């Protein structure tokens, strides 16, 4: 009996450890990154931006890189691009404190519009995709091990049944939270207006009636694309068409 309990705990510990594996941060410098930082510190922001964007094009994505790029765009007065890159930094690392702080500051400066979130979405956004994934994984395996144990036990165990029910609830809640994170207006459809003097319109024409003026950095939720136009949900709960080159999705 003791041997079985020991095996069970070893399994659980293995699951947790396997889920909690996170990449370590290294201290050594990427030469391109260091050079771009140097350009930034010397006030050559456009060159710094070129350096950061070269790193991004080479696939070396990181929250810090997007954050630094956002700072460089802010120095050039391009609030739309700055907010876009802060959002990207937060999409990569939702608990990036510097990106969150600068995003608030630049949004206020740009008077950018934000998409509305309901109470449930705000509550769910307290956790990250990784946290919900780990919770779902642990609950899933706990529930499965409990069910297997119950199957081979040949007798009913109230504790085991409770564990299975609890695990199922946690698993369902975590999966729902993940679904909400992915499909809400903060999910993969989130885009940022980077163009200037952008008007959301009722139809895919430059002379169509305007629905909303979108300052640079405003959030939109892309619903579909037709040619050079994006159909998007707007911060005022309405929908409209905006030129596709006037907004960029946060997730690359």
């Amino acid at each position, binding site marked *: 009996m003791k041997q079985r309990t020991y095996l069970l705990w*070893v*399994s659980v510990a*293995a*699951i947790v450890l*396997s*889920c909690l*594996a996170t*990449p*370590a*941060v*290294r201290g050594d*410098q*990427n030469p391109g*990154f260091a050079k771009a*930082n140097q350009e*930034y510190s010397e*006030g050559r*922001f456009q060159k710094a931006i070129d350096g950061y964007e070269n790193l991004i094009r080479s*696939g*070396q*994505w*990181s929250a*810090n*890189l997007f954050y*630094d790029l956002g*700072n460089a765009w*802010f*120095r*050039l*007065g*391009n*609030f739309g691009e700055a907010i876009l890159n802060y959002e*990207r930094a937060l*999409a*990569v690392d939702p608990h990036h404190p*510097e990106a969150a*702080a*600068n995003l608030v*500051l630049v949004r206020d400066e*740009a*008077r950018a*519009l934000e998409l509305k979130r309901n109470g449930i979405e705000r509550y769910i956004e307290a956790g990250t*995709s*990784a946290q919900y*994934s780990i919770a779902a*994984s642990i609950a899933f*395996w706990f529930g*499965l*091990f409990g069910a*297997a144990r119950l199957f*081979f036990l040949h007798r009913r165990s109230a504790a085991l049944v409770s564990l299975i029910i609890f695990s199922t609830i946690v698993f369902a809640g975590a999966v729902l939270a*993940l679904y909400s994170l992915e499909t809400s207006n903060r999910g993969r459809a989130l885009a940022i207006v980077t163009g200037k003097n952008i008007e959301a319109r009722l139809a895919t024409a430059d002379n169509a009636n*305007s629905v*909303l*003026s979108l*300052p640079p950095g405003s959030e939109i939720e892309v619903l579909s694309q037709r040619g050079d136009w994006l159909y998007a949900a707007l911060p*005022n709960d*309405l929908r409209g068409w905006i030129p596709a080159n006037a907004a960029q999705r*946060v997730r*690359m």
Partner: protein
Amino acid sequence: MIGNRSTMYRSSLKRSLAHTAIASIALAALVGSATADQPSVTSVLTSSETTVGQPVGLQIQVKGDRNAAPPSEISVEGLEIQSTGQTQSFEMRNFDVTSSITFNYTILPQRAGKFTIPALTLRAGSNSLRTPELTLNVTNSPNQSSQSNRAGGTVDPKKNTFAELIVPKTSAYVGEMIPIVVRVGFEIQTRVREVPPEIDLPGQGFTKQKMRASETQQMIGGKTYQVVSYKTAIAAARTGTIEIGPVEIPAVVMVPQSQRNRSFPQNPFGLNDPTLDNFFNDPWLTASVPRQIKLTTEPVNIEVKALPPNAPPTFGGAVGNFTMAADANPKSVQVGDPITVTAKISGRGNFDRVTGPAFDDEHGWHKYPPSADFKQDDDVGISGTKTFETVLSPNERKDKLPAQVFTYFDSLKEQYVTLRSDPIPVRVEGGTAPFATAPRAAEMAPAPSASPAAVPKKQDILYQLTELPSTPQSFTPFFVRRSFCLAQLFPLLVLLGYVGWKMRQAHLDNREARRREALQHEATDLKRSLSRADASPQEYFSQASRAIQLKTALAKDLDPNTVDAEVAASVFQADENTRVRLRHLFEKSDEVRYSGGGQNGIRLVPPETRTEVLDLIDSLRR
């Protein structure tokens, strides 16, 4: 008079009195509820254009309070305004009774000019009501455009009927509303049996409606007439001359037979008394027959002019004379909340072409299509108030609503008039401030080569970060990353191992159980055999030792073949005596098994020996 009048005359007096009494009681009961509505007042001229000496009517109607006091004396220089009495009326629609009182005035212009009848104040209970201002345009030349067309001429006093088509203008603009009146008069002595309740206005090139009859009594040329008036308003649809009429009005009148047959004496007594002659010639008393007659007016021509070119972009086709009042509710909202903006366009004109006013600057607002509601003040719908409600939703902070703009063509001034409401102050909170008033940091930002200090801001952004993670990060959700999926293999393998182990254990448990069951079965059979007396010693002691082996094996989960006397004694922790007896039993069993002999010729086991062996087996307990 309208409809079959003869039936009315045939009704009995009692029946009429009873109906009148019931109607009066019901009316009196309903009047109380009729006063519950908030009283309102309307004021309307029968025509806004006239000539010197040509009177027009002014009607001031108060709805909801039949005890309203008339306005004080109306005095306008150049106009002689005299009261011609007041009428009260009740109207019931779906058991909703409204009472009203109408004050009638006749306005006689004494000189040409444009006159404004000022707003008048009336007292209705505790309420103070105010009429709108009215404008009357008076010309002194019958040749001017505002001359009234009176087809049918003046009423001939020699005839006891007349019909006339009254068109107040000889020229108009396309779309301008022109009130039309067709009047049919019957001298009071004429018994009119039937006139049509509504007639059609013949002619082309204008929009028209059915003309409904209303009846009054008027003194014309010293004679009293029953006058049936048909009113409507037309709007010219094309330029050029349009002809209105002639209008034919069929009627049925009762003609005294005495007038048709002169051979009959004028009175039955044959007396030459004019008084008696008048009595017997009274059409109400003499026998009469119905006769179909047709009254016809003369046609009238109107010259229709096109509207001037270069109309403002906000012009929607409204022609007439209008005023506009704007309001909004609520005046304090959050960004995105709706504000209902009301525009009341009042006046006289073609209200069917009065469209919702435009907003001069819709930037930062989301505008929804307006709703419209028209309340007419007259019989033909060319005077009233059209109310537009437009919902505006602010997209950003605002301090005032955009001004509303409404353009119409004033047919008197012969020019386009644009009404512009004052911007209504509102308070919009939340969201962002309006761009026009807020400094744009982006626009003030320096060129790419500018220094960081050039960016104007109260609080600076945080510093650059100089560390990168050892492995690139990803936008891919955590649950679809390869590392996460691979990590799930470990618990999966553990689970599969656990399940396999448990299944194998179950299989083994099952085999052991079957083995134990076989041993148990064998032990039961042996015990039954040991109780019998017919067993040979060789067989008996062999079975006894086997029984002990089985019992020991079942007790300790051992292979029965490995059990000997010592093992059995230790398993059951037997005492020395029992151990000796066990040893003796196993020796006896080996002896008879390997020696082949049987107890020195003894063929059966003595009963005492069987009892002793059975006692020994039973005494083995853990």
